[in-house]
């Protein structure tokens, strides 16, 4: 007799546990307000990335097309996998001295691991992360970017 009661108890408890689970799922079924899906391409305009989001490395330029990069190469040394390559040139400053300056700051987005060491170690805060995250291109060569804009110059007062 006890075994029969045990058998029935097992069935009732089992079904009860199943019903509790079904209650959770059906509650969600009838509450469309809890849907968490974001409709991505449609919400592009309202989509704001967080300010620290590591999208890609950029070199901010001011309105006079000036940047802060001195071409010291510390970011290149700190980069773990050779994402950054710096081609420097020698320029003659106004007072006639020869000085090393940046020619091309090559940044290979395809290799970047977003470890933030370049941004962190840059002595003149020339690099920053942008919030852009749509990086897909059809040609891989487009992922190799030159960060300093053509014709840009070193900002005054940055050594």
């Amino acid at each position, binding site marked *: 007799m006890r075994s029969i009661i045990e058998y029935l108890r097992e*069935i009732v408890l089992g079904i009860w546990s*199943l019903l509790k689970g*079904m209650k*959770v799922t059906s509650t969600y079924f009838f509450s469309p307000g809890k*849907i968490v899906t974001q409709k991505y391409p449609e919400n592009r305009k309202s989509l704001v990335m967080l300010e620290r989001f590591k999208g890609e490395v950029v070199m901010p330029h001011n309105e006079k097309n000036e940047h802060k990069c001195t071409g010291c190469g510390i970011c290149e040394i700190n980069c773990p996998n050779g994402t950054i390559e710096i081609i420097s040139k020698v320029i003659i400053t106004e007072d006639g001295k020869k000085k090393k300056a940046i020619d091309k700051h090559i940044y290979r987005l395809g290799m970047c691991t977003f470890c933030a060491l370049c941004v962190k170690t840059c002595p003149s805060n020339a690099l920053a992360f942008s919030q852009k995250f749509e990086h897909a291109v059809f040609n891989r060569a487009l992922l190799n970017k030159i960060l300093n804009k053509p014709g840009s110059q070193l900002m005054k007062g940055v050594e």
Partner: protein
Amino acid sequence: MLPEIVAQNTSASQSVPWWKFFYDFSLLTQPVDVWLKGSVSPFWSTVIEMAIVGVLFLLFYAVVGLFLVYAERKVCAFIQNRLGPNRIGPFGIFQTVADLIKLLFKELIPIKNADSFLFNLAPFIVIIVNFMVLAAIPFSKGLHAIDFNIGIFYVIAVSSMSVVGVLLAGWSSNSKYSLIGAMRSGAQIVSYELSIGLAIITIVILAGSMQLSEIIEAQRTGWFIFKGHIPALIAFVIYIISSTAETNRGPFDMAEAESELTAGYHTEYSGIRFAFFYLAEYINMFIVASIAATLFLGGWMPFHVGSWDGFNRIMDFIPPFIWYIGKTFFIIWIIMLFKWTFPRLRIDQLLTLEWKYLLPINLLNVLIMAFIVLMGWHF
């Protein structure tokens, strides 16, 4: 009110307004039948009627199959706090159509060392079985392809043949995953046939007939799930559980168990052959749901309560087809809820559930039902 009018007016059907077809479909089919029989020989009239019914079923099959795939995706998405398909058409309703077109264009990959004849045959067996069962289902009053006097028996007998297709698919694929899936499916369907059969017998005892139209007619004074109270309710639960198992769905999808066997018996199928299996799964679900609706929830019979004539008449205004679809989709929704809530059973637990729990309860239940019918203790 309506059925009486309909019964009187069958001969003078030409004058029946169009909206009455919704209440009795035979008003439309009868004149066609009479006209055909009058204009061509009986042989050709039968052939033409069969062709019409066949084409209608093909259309119905595609529409219902695609709709159910869409419905499942939406239901599971809502359960999981997602949106589901929402790109093609409003609310993504054409998503499954697009999927079907994609599947139609896909390459049918020939499998090395596969038994190609059986491999090609398997999806068709599943499909043919589906069509054969659909023929016996009463969709609405008068909308019924064949009304056997052993209708429900026919349904059980034919639907159990779909396991042959599944077994052939697994066997001929030359893949171990498929084979395991097929063997599981074989064991599963063969044992759960028993439960389904017994659950149906419980209702057959209550109805006193195996003819589907008579079973429905017997529910004019109340659906069996209310009339037969406790044993009918138990039979209903058992029927839902075992029919979920028989359609290889939900917590019982041992045969395709994608986290274990990738896709089970249809692992190696591609393109339209895969689509056949896929559609067949959904049509199977539709079939078991409509059988459940017919047996327990009165099929197309509106909700009637014993002798409350006024209430019954109000209910009669809703066309039978709507009742039928509503009930069927309610049961489909429950089956979907099972699938998206529960984890999967293991194959031995599945058989334990059948032989240790469902079968004994079911046998006892048949006995109780017979006793109740004998004593007239039902409503």
